[in-house]
């Protein structure tokens, strides 16, 4: 076993255990702490793969995100000192069904993909972030031409020319919806007695 493989197995185990911890913990802040470990070890896997920028982004976005989650969890749900969530039987059933469905989709897709082939052509390189950034802005001259890997039979098909602006915009709108939802949740529900 190489060093990279050993590190990968350690990180993957930590991620999996922490993810299970998020699901089974009823204390809201402990669950958020498990989530922190799951996300941080995912960032570790990105670093192991050489995707430094993605790993650092994972840290800065998701650690900040979990922090906000803790603050909101404490501020919005706390009625006593330490908050425990009580989960009913129906919620268990629904979440188990959704989880199994998602797992089966992922498992089926994973089984269809062959492991990445060892004999990658020598000129096959990962794209620098500059090209991806230019493509996000819709500049067609530098649209990424990375090849799709991990296909059956080890053949390479070039990716079609796509402009990434539309998916990017859809994600931004989605984030805006999330922001509005958070603002709505955090809104202080005061009665305006002085006016009425």
């Amino acid at each position: 076993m190489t060093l990279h493989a050993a590190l990968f197995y350690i990180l993957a185990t930590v991620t999996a255990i922490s993810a299970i911890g998020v699901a089974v913990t009823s204390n809201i802040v402990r669950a958020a702490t498990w989530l922190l470990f799951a996300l941080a070890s995912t960032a570790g896997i990105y670093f192991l793969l050489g995707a430094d920028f993605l790993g650092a982004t994972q840290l800065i976005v998701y650690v900040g995100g979990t922090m906000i989650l803790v603050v909101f969890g404490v501020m919005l749900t706390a009625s006593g000192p330490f908050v425990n969530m009580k989960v009913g039987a129906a919620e268990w059933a629904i979440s188990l069904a959704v989880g199994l469905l998602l797992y089966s989709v992922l498992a089926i897709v994973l089984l269809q993909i062959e492991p990445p082939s060892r004999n990658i052509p020598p000129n096959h390189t990962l794209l620098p972030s500059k090209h991806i950034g230019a493509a996000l802005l819709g500049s067609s001259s530098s649209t990424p031409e990375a090849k799709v890997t991990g296909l059956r039979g080890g053949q390479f098909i070039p990716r079609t020319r796509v402009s990434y602006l539309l998916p990017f915009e859809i994600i931004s709108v989605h984030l805006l919806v999330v922001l509005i939802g958070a603002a709505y949740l955090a809104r202080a529900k005061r009665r305006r007695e002085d006016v009425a």
Partner: protein
Amino acid sequence: MIRQEDLREDILNGELTNLFRWFLGLPEDSLSPFPGLMAAGVAVGMLVGFVALSAVFFIWLERKVAGRIQDRLGPTRVGGKFGWLQTIADGIKLLVKEDLIPRDADHILFRLGPYIAFCGAFCAFIALPFAQGWTAYGTGTGAFAIGVFFILAVMSTEVFGIILAGYGSGSKWSLFGGMREAAQMVGYEIPMSLCVLVPVIVAGSMDLGKISANQAGWFWEWYVFRDPFTFVAFWTYFTCATAACKRAPFDLAEAESELVAGFHTEYSGLRWSFFFMAEYAAMFAVSGVAVLLFGGGWHLGLPVWTLVGLSPELSQVLNWPSNVLNIGNAINAGVFIVKCWVLVFVQIWVRWTLPRLRIDQVMMTCIKYLLPISCFLMLGVSLWEVFARPYLGDYFKFVLAGLVLISIIITAMRVFTTPMKLPTPGIDAPWGPRIPAEFTIKRS
């Protein structure tokens, strides 16, 4: 461009790894993981030792500086005239102190908080280059291309430890401290990151080593003097960084006049000292980032080597014997550490000089002043690079560096020549001769 098949090989190509290959008699291109593992272990050991030792030094410095500012002497007895061993004595005291966990605390989170805080501050050192290529992660040929972004990312995890400590203590004072810290950090991270972007725009790189290498030569090559925007960005960054280390005047998470001791009210002994290791480590780390981005990095600012006709990079001059031990790099690392110490001293000085702000004033400073200023700076530096620079050329830096140098000289002359008025007669001023009794305040 990163080859897809080569994964994280940087640590296997670092200077330290080469040293171990040479030591073990392995060829340069051997792929054995042992030299890499040993180098990683040594790098971690060196960094932990450095962080712990500098924390010891900073705590002593803090007490001495606080003493002088409050017109007293600070530690004088433990370890000779200057109290050098005071921090060691404190450390022993903290080790043997009873380790209390309150009954109402959430035990796991209470234990976890200090470690997360320390890990967050310590991880920043992994990407901090002490000299050309002297980085724990991404050494050698493959420099860590996004070093400054990585440091900002891992430093933000420190707050999580503080919040966990505040929440897990099961005490209202701790919870207040933790929530204040959360609010403060969420606010101050934004202007801090925007100020970091200013030199990144100038250099066109997020690699701290490359940014620092760009500032080789005379001290006016430092980015702080490059244009008016970088000059202001340095001070704005340093203010935000002080707040990010939760140092006074921004130490609302502790605020011992209101919250007992804030987030660490319930902590004692070794766990408490982890928070303080984290604080001093973070102070050094943010100062290191300031030095690398604005203050010329590991360059002295006086290129004596160029004057005698050698290369401007010290590491290329004193490279002996061939990559095994680089004396030039060691000298550069010393220069870098001294520069960081100066900035840490400024943080200590500010802490004992300025009064603590109120929490609403802290948030107002961030959102109403620092955030617009940093947005303006980022816009301004982009426009300066595109429009003003082609016309003005490089001459602005001479003006700014000269003005700063002249004002430093005038201040130093005033400080060292004017007699200082002291509240008590008969005690020597810190500088200069004994003050005659008629200049001092008489006590009845």
